[in-house]
C-alpha cells in the first residue's frame, strides 16, 4: 500500500502535486473549522481555558504544507467559525484573530528554530502564545492590565493541552508523511 502510493507520488506531474496540496489544505481547513465549532459549543469551566483543538489542524498544515498554508488555515478558520457562531467583527473576534496570529507566529519561530523542538514543543509554543495574546488583547480592549492577573491558570492549562494536541498532530503528520500524502 505504502510503496504503491510513494511510487504514485514520485511520478506525479506538477498539476497533481498542486491539486494534492489544495485538497489537503481544504481538508485541514474543514477539520480546523469543525474542531473550532466543537470547542465553541463546549462551555469551559474556567474563563480563558480552551482545548485548542483547532491548533492540531494548523500544526499539521505547517508541517506538511508550509507556513503560508498554515496561516491561511488559521485565519480562515477564525473567519468561518466567527461567521457560524455570530461573533464575527465583534470584540470577541479581535481576541480570536490575535490569538490565531500569535499562535501561528510562535509555531513558525519554533519550527524554524535551531533548537530541536519536536511537534510537541512547537504545539506548546503555539498554545501558550495563543492564550497570552488573547489576554494582552483583552487588556487592550478593556484598557486595564488587571485582567492579566487571571492569566496564570489558562497559561498552565494551555501547556497541558498544547502537549496533548502536539501528540495528536505528530501522529497525524507521521501518517500523512508515511503515506507520501504530505504536500511537499
Amino acid at each position: 500500500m505504502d510503496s504503491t502510493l510513494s511510487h504514485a507520488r514520485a511520478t506525479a506531474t506538477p498539476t497533481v502535486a498542486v491539486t494534492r496540496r489544495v485538497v489537503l489544505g481544504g481538508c485541514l481547513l474543514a477539520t480546523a473549522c469543525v474542531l473550532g465549532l466543537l470547542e465553541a459549543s463546549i462551555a469551559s469551566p474556567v474563563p480563558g481555558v480552551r482545548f485548542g483543538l483547532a491548533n492540531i489542524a494548523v500544526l499539521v498544515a505547517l508541517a506538511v504544507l508550509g507556513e503560508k498554508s498554515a496561516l491561511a488555515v488559521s485565519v480562515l478558520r477564525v473567519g468561518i467559525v466567527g461567521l457560524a457562531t455570530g461573533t464575527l467583527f465583534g470584540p470577541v473576534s479581535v481576541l480570536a484573530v490575535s490569538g490565531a496570529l500569535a499562535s501561528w507566529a510562535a509555531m513558525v519561530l519554533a519550527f524554524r528554530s535551531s533548537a530541536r523542538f519536536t511537534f510537541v514543543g512547537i504545539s506548546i509554543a503555539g498554545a501558550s502564545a495563543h492564550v497570552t495574546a488573547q489576554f494582552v488583547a483583552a487588556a487592550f480592549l478593556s484598557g486595564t492590565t488587571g485582567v492579566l492577573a487571571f492569566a496564570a491558570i489558562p497559561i498552565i492549562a494551555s501547556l497541558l493541552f498544547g502537549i496533548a494536541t502536539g501528540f495528536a498532530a505528530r501522529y497525524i503528520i507521521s501518517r500523512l508523511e508515511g503515506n507520501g500524502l504530505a504536500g511537499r
Partner: protein
Amino acid sequence: MSRADRILAIAVVLFALLVGPAVRGAAALSPAQTVTIKGPSGSTRVSLSAERTLEVEGLNGVVVVVVHDGHASVRESSCPDHVCVRSGVVSRSGEAIACVPNGVTVRIGGERNDGLDAVAR
C-alpha cells in the same frame, strides 16, 4: 519530547506563575478602597465597603455588577460565554474583570489616572 521541549515547558510554567504577581505589583499603586466600573457610556466609581448592585448598560445588553463585603463581581451578563461571570470576585488593587463583548470593565482601585472624562454616581 526533546530537551528543548522540556525547557520550553518549564519556561511557560515560570511565565504563568510570574505574570499574576507582576501585574498585581505594577498596578498596586494605592490601597484598594474603590472599584471603578467602566462601560460604553461612561464610568462609575463605587466604594468597596458599600453594598451595591449596579446595572451597567453594555454594548449587547445589561451587565449586573455586585459590590459586596469588600469584593466586586459580575453576577449576570448578556454576553454569550460569561467569562466575566465566571471570573469570580476581585478585591485586590489592580485586579479587574472584563466583559469584552459588552465593553464593560470592573477594576479595583480608581485612583490611577485613566484619562476619564467624568465620574458619575
